[in-house]
């Protein structure tokens, strides 16, 4: 009861945010939500299924470019977002087939190389992606369902609400996934591949499902980007961008549900604070990573409810 109340009050707070927060705060909150979705998907692979991917940005980019191309041709927000997620889903499914046959280091390096292939594709294929200039002039298209509603999106507040609703739905869906039998299977695979296989479960298939879902969450986060920024450029596919959900999740807590969300929030807030005092925020972030890996592998969330563990 108390938990539900706390979550509900948080949600109400988020809905009321535009009333007392400035435009830049809204802009940052949207980015935090995008990183949360990105990190949730990443953590499904890492925290729940035991696969460390350094190439999730490739699927983020697939979602972003997919949505952008659609909006440039057919300016309807829902079509763009859903289209972007679909593109990312297809990409992660196909690449997943190739990746999940390997584990651990090889898996990580394979995802790294695929992510970078998408990056170089985005950079070189000027006709399709605009090259290093990227796609520009992407409209913040209206949200319309023919015959039902048509909401103009030119104000940041309206778009904020769209992102908020999408995020809440996605988080709710994620909660259902990890608490379902499928979610338990993922964790079983993470803890002991052999035992899970012995029970008759196709480890590969479940890994592929996990990979695809993770890719779609990355794609959703990516698809919500173009209407916000009106531009999509290749760095969103770079491996250094893949590192963001990794860091956010590590910061928040790998083994928990809210970890990636908490981590995404902390990541932005920390950076914002540190940057006010010094331009050298990378070294601070690096130091935080060291502290976390050495002592707090369960992240910030674990600090709240007991030490994360030894590993």
């Amino acid at each position, binding site marked *: 009861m108390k*938990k539900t109340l706390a979550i509900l009050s948080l949600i109400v707070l988020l809905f009321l945010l535009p009333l*007392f927060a*400035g*435009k830049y705060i809204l*802009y940052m909150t949207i980015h935090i939500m995008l990183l949360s979705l990105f990190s949730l998907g990443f953590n499904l692979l890492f925290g729940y299924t035991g696969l460390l991917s350094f190439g999730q940005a490739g699927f983020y980019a697939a979602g972003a470019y997919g949505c952008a191309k659609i909006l440039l041709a057919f300016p309807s927000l829902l079509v763009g977002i859903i289209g972007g997620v679909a593109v990312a889903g297809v990409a992660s499914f196909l690449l997943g087939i190739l990746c999940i046959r390997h584990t651990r280091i090889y898996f990580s390096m394979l995802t790294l190389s695929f992510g970078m292939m998408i990056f170089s594709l985005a950079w070189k294929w000027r006709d399709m992606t605009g090259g*290093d200039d*990227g796609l520009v002039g992407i409209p913040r298209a209206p949200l319309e369902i023919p015959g039902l509603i048509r909401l103009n999106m030119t104000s940041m507040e309206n778009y904020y609400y769209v992102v908020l609703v999408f995020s809440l739905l996605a988080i709710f869906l994620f909660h259902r996934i990890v608490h379902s039998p499928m979610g338990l299977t993922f964790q079983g695979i993470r*803890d002991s591949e052999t035992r899970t296989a012995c029970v008759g479960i196709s480890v590969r298939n479940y890994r592929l499902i996990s990979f695809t879902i993770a890719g779609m969450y990355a794609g959703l986060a990516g698809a919500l980007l173009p209407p916000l920024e009106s531009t999509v450029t290749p760095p*969103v596919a770079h491996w250094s961008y893949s590192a963001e959900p990794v860091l956010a999740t590590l910061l928040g807590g790998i083994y928990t549900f809210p970890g990636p969300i908490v981590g995404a929030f902390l990541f932005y807030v920390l950076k914002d604070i540190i940057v006010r005092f010094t331009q050298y925020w990378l070294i601070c972030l690096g130091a935080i990573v060291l502290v976390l890996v050495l002592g707090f592998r369960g992240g910030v969330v674990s600090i709240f409810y007991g030490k994360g563990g*030894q590993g």
Partner: protein
Amino acid sequence: MSERKKISRRAFLKAAAAVGIGGIASGLRGVAEAAPQKEKAPAKAKPKKKILGVDVIKIGGQGVTSGAHADYGWQMIAGSTLAIEEINAKGGILGSKLELKFMDEELKPAVAVKNTRYLATEWGAHFLFGVDSSGSSMAVGPVLPEIDRICMFTHASTHRLTEELVAAKGVKQIFRMSVPVYQESILSSLIFKDFPNIKRWAGIHCDYEYGYSTWALFKETLKKYRPDVEFVAIAWAPFWTMDFSSHIAAVMAANPDAIHATPWAGEGVMLLRQALMLGVFDKIQAWFQCMGGSVDILEGIANEVAAGKFKDKLWATARYIHNYPDTPQNKAFVANFRKRWNRLPNYSAENSYSAIYAFKAAVEKTRSLKTSDLIKALEGMEIMTPGGKRFFRPEDHQAVYNVPGGRVIKDPNYPIPIVGGDLKVIPAKDYYRHPPFTPIAMGK
């Protein structure tokens, strides 16, 4: 990995509380900041006796401050700071002092956009300037109408910024102080069309927008004057190329008479050095280093120039060179800059310095800080700057001014080489493109 955590109710509660408190905190921060949700003008103090209504005029800039190209950000800071100090010493603009905030664009368009939003909507900048990379400028441009601020671009050189975004799409908040790729492409064609023995050209170019547009425009222009010219080889070097030996070897295999090159800053120096090592300057007749007139490159190749290694074959230009024009204003600027920073100013310094003064002129003309007023003041403005007389043409908000090209030589008056031999000064209006702008085919 054998750790598994049950999500206890208390744990979840605590995590949610943390997020909630953080959310409230950031919301409250928004309230505490002097910029509420309806922002038409940036942070305004209570009305005082100041003519413009604010104590402090805020100027936000951005450029590259780390990596192989970091000197350009440094120069932007140096130039703009000098201008601001000079203006503040004389009482500011109409009584209000100037304050600068400069951020790192990291050569990433997404970061440039984020900086732009932060500077304008959060920090309260009245005026924006800077931006090194062409890709970043194309991303920042479309955001300006939404935040209602002018950005005076002082480096990014893609023609598309002014030709497409201003002239075609009407983004009036974009102004450019620095000469675009017309300089390295068209000026170099006009110089080399008069060398009948140079028929075979090869290019070593940046593998991004800047390189593509420069090479395409150079080829298109030179071909018009010299149909006999051939473009025999091209090598593309991406960001973070450390070693150009393969690129140089590849183009030299085609036996070119001359080479046209865009890699700039630290990469430019190493490119030239490796070219020297590969004996290139024994074989070719000329090498045109597009932004070779920039101070960091001149410093880097000083020893080699002094020893005559380039055999007088190295040509260059820039977006301003400190030895041109020979006016009292320019001499004073260079002297003051050297006194303040102990270095010679390069073009991003002069451009940023002039950007601040252009802003000052516009504000003094309209006695207002409103973007729409400033746009009207800047359009068609003629202003004397260290780099010469500049005219902001209304059709695309591009500043028109002359910058020469020439051979890189040693000069006793300066501690580093200069672009000074066979200096060719061609009136800008003779080589700047005009509307109607036909798109440049950027095939590889």
